[in-house]
Each structure stands twice: as structure tokens, then as C-alpha cells.
């Protein structure tokens, strides 16, 4: 590539080509991130113009904040069930839809539908379904499971969140699994068939190992979205009943913006970020080890 010889045109091009993105990226992500680390060492309340350095007090408080760890534990439970269920449903749908089925595009489009709508609206729709449609069904058909709203019961409200999340993301992950299935080489499968492998053996011995990259992507996405869930949590249960379904994201939000404890809120956000980063990176690291070549 021919390079500009003079420094001025070279700088001009650099600013034109990389300036806007880098400037926005640095001022929107990097500066707030670094400033956030500084904020965790202060006791700023969001209003006062001055604040004092308290060094690591906020981190000590994070470890003493029982509610934070409770909601973190709840989030872990939520992440576990959603990651397993979303990926299981998505993979099964992808398997069912990948072999030249008539009308498969219609099915794909239908399963993908919830992803067009944001979590806030999905949560509101399901709030109606859970507290009206299901309750009505439960009363008419005498199904005790639905006789009163799931959202009024702490344990069932948690499962309501899981159900909505599976419904929300299964279609998206299905699309990624379909892309993965299409990249499994046909000749390998055919060779296996000729050698007498049945469908189950092919799935277990060939398709699953070759699909490891898709699993890494999907599990990464579901882990991250699960830990950071906020929209559906807010619009479906608002953390209720009695704060029983308050996930960790919502807890951080409330600490900072409602209790006006910005330093502590940011410290909790950073601790959360470090934990999630560690978990997702470990997942990718061990996933990569399982990758095979066709």
C-alpha cells in the first residue's frame, strides 16, 4: 500500500479514518471505566460537589453487603438454568430445522420473533400473560399450578423470569446453531453413514464435537446476558414480590441511583464485572481446548 509521504496528510488521514471511532470509544468507554475505578474509592452521593477519598472502604462494604451477595447468588441460579435451558432448546430447534424441512424459513422466523422486541416490552407482555391469561386458564380448567399469578409468589416469580428468558433467547441462539450445523462438512457425515454409524452416533461423535465453536459463542452470549439481565427483570417482576427476584444488575442500579451511594454501587458493579469476566473467559478457554478439526 502506498503511504502518504508527508506527515501532515498522513496525520489528516489518520484523524479522518480513526478519529471519530477512537474519540467516541475513549470518551464513552475508557474514560468512564477508569473514572469508575476512582469513584469506587470515594464516598460521592451523587449530589454533593465534593467528595472525600475513602480508599478501599467501599470494597470492604461490598463484601459485607449481604443483599448484594444474595442477589448475586440468585443471579447465579438464574444464569445456570437459563444457560442450560436456552442452549438445550436452541440446539434441539436447530437440529429439527436444519435438514431441508419444508417451510423451515417460516419456523425460523417464528422462533426468532421475540428477539425483535426489547426485554422491556417482552416483560410487559408476559406480565399480562402470567397474571391474566394463565390465571384465567387455571381457574377455568382447574389447574392449581396457574390458579394464582406466578408473579405474586417469590419462588414462581423466579421461574417466570427463567421461562421468559428461555423464550426470549432460544430463537437467537438457534440461528447461531443452525449456522454451525450448516458448516459441519457433509462428506464426513456421509462417510460415517457408509461405515454404519446410526443417527445417534453421528450426533454424539461427529456433530457435537464439530459444533464446539458454536457452543462457545452461544454459552458466552447467554452467560453474559444472564449475568447482566435488567430489562426483563424490571418490567416483569420489578424485583418483586418483596425484592425476592432482584437480580444483581438491578441491585447495583438501586444502590447507585436510588440509595445514592455511588461509590459503593460502582464498587459492586466492578466486582460483578470481574467475576463475570473471569467466568466467561474460563468458559472460552476450556471450550477452545475441546475444539476439533473435521
Amino acid at each position, binding site marked *: 500500500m502506498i503511504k502518504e509521504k508527508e506527515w501532515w496528510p498522513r496525520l489528516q488521514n489518520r484523524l479522518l479514518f*480513526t478519529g471519530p471511532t*477512537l474519540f467516541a470509544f*475513549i470518551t*464513552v468507554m475508557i474514560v468512564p471505566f477508569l473514572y469508575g475505578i476512582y469513584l469506587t474509592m470515594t464516598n460521592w452521593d451523587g449530589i454533593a460537589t465534593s467528595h472525600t477519598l475513602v480508599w478501599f472502604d467501599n470494597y470492604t462494604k461490598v463484601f459485607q453487603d449481604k443483599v448484594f451477595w444474595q442477589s448475586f447468588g440468585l443471579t447465579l441460579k438464574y444464569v445456570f438454568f437459563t444457560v442450560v435451558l436456552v442452549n438445550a432448546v436452541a440446539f434441539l430447534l436447530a437440529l429439527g430445522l436444519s435438514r431441508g424441512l419444508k417451510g423451515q424459513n417460516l419456523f425460523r422466523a417464528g422462533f426468532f420473533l421475540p428477539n425483535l422486541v426489547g426485554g422491556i416490552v417482552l416483560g*410487559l407482555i408476559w406480565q399480562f400473560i402470567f397474571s*391474566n391469561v394463565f390465571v384465567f386458564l387455571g381457574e377455568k380448567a382447574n389447574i392449581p399450578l396457574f390458579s394464582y399469578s406466578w408473579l405474586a409468589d417469590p419462588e414462581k416469580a423466579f421461574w417466570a423470569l427463567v421461562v421468559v428468558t428461555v423464550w426470549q433467547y432460544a430463537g437467537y441462539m438457534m*440461528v447461531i446453531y443452525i449456522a454451525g450445523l450448516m458448516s459441519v462438512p457433509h462428506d464426513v457425515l456421509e462417510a460415517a453413514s457408509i461405515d454404519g454409524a446410526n443417527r445417534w452416533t453421528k450426533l454424539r461423535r461427529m456433530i457435537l464435537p464439530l459444533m464446539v465453536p458454536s457452543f462457545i459463542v452461544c454459552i458466552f452470549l447467554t452467560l453474559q446476558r444472564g449475568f447482566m439481565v*435488567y430489562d426483563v427483570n424490571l418490567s416483569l417482576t420489578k424485583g418483586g414480590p418483596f425484592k425476592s427476584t432482584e437480580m444483581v444488575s438491578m441491585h447495583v442500579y438501586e444502590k447507585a441511583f436510588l440509595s445514592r451511594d455511588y461509590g459503593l454501587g460502582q464498587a459492586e458493579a466492578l466486582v460483578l464485572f470481574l467475576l463475570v469476566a473471569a467466568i466467561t473467559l474460563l468458559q472460552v478457554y476450556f471450550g477452545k481446548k475441546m475444539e476439533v478439526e473435521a
Partner: protein
Amino acid sequence: MRSSKSSTWLRITGLIVVLCLFVFPFFFLLLNSFKANTAITSNPLAFPEVFNWDNYRNAFEKMNYTASFFNSLVITLLGVALISLFAAMTAHYFVRNNTKFNQYTFMIMVAAMIIPFQAIMIPLVKIYGSLNLLDNKWSLIYMYLGFGSPLAVFIYHGFVKGIPAELEEAALIDGCTRRQTFFRIVFPVLAPTTATISILNVLWIWNDYLLPSLILVSPENRTLPLSTFNFYGTYSVDYGPLMAGLVLTVMPIMLVYIFAQRYIIQGVMQGSIK
């Protein structure tokens, strides 16, 4: 792969059952949006006896629908366009000027993708608040550029590498400047990638809630998800208009989906492979 007739039928039946489970919430939403409140609470499963458009008129006004729709539209279109254009330029520059400095900058951008928004939102609000840049849709668009660039640069980077450098050298020898080479040759060649990135970003920005809820304060600046949520909160006894409001919010993107369904799903596929 061969499979017997009966197992195919079993598979299709299973898929249809699951499809119904996926679609029924939207169906009941639409059904109840035409009914009066008493009809909804007495039987949410029944068809509406008369199609009542009052709910829609009511929701349309109370949600300030036109204003929020245009806010959402402007923010999404501008955000998506800026991210695509500037990220393509940056990725192109990084690939063709493969210096150590550019490599490190690129690595930092990619690494930053793991930072969740929640780890940034508190200082972000403080910084932009003290600069008096909150409650302003132009700041929000700018923030989308910042948050959206890393992924877009990353995806473009992979595809720019696939464009033969000879193509650009030929243009340069023929007298194109660097900018002309980018706009006349590279950017058009990248069109499929631009489509993928735009689709991913439209789905993200159009539906985003947390960031706009922190940035946009006054009612006239609200985007559709914000005004929907707000409408729901202040109106939570009368189901009819609420249902109509949700339908109105979902409608625009569903209309787009009917026509662009294949491209949207392909876009998500392409975006995940890289």
C-alpha cells in the same frame, strides 16, 4: 440424512407445538388490544365482540406516540449509520496500516467488548451530567457510536483483510486519493458486512432501554421503549389501552421483519460466525 416418514411427521408436529408456544403471547396481546377492560378481565381468551379502536386512539395520545417514534427513529438511524461508516473506516485503516500502535489500539478495542454496560453506567452519568450533556438525543447517538464501535470495527476488520490489497493499489496508481479509494472501492465492496452490522445494531438500539433511560430525562425526548414503560407504570389499571400501546410499540419492527425477515436472520448468522 434419510429419515422415515413417521419420524418426519413427529418432528413437524413437535416444531408446530413449540412454534405455537413462541407466538401465543403476541397473539393474545393483539386479541386483547381491541377489547374493553371488563371484557379483558372477564375472559382474556375470548375473541373481541366488536373491534374497538378507542384503545389505540387512547394509547397513541397518552404515549405521545408520534414524538417517541420519531425520537427512536432518528436515534436508531443516525446511530447505525455513524457506527457503520466510521467503524468501516477505522477497520480499513487498521488493516492497511498494520503498525504496532494500530495493532495495540485494535486489541484494546476488542478487549473492551467484555466490559458490560453496567460497569460503566454510573461514571458515565456523572461525567456527562457534569458536562451538561444529559437529556439530549445527540449525546445518546454519540454514546451509541462509542459503545457500538468495538464490535463493528472487529467484524469489519475480518472482512477488510479479505479484500485484495492489489485492488486498492490499482486505484491509487490510477490517481485515486486514499479517501476516494475507501469511498469508491472499499466501502461498496463491504456492503454485505455493512448490512450485517446494521441489522445487529438496529435490533440493539431500537430496543435498548437502560442507556436511554439514564440519558433522556424529559418526556419529549423519550424513545419508544421508555414511553411504553412509562405509560404502563402510570396506567396500570386499564388493560385495554396498555395492550394497544404494546402493539403500537411492537408494530414498526414487525412490519420491517415481514419484508426483511431473511436478511435479519442471515445477518445474525453472519455476525456470529466472525
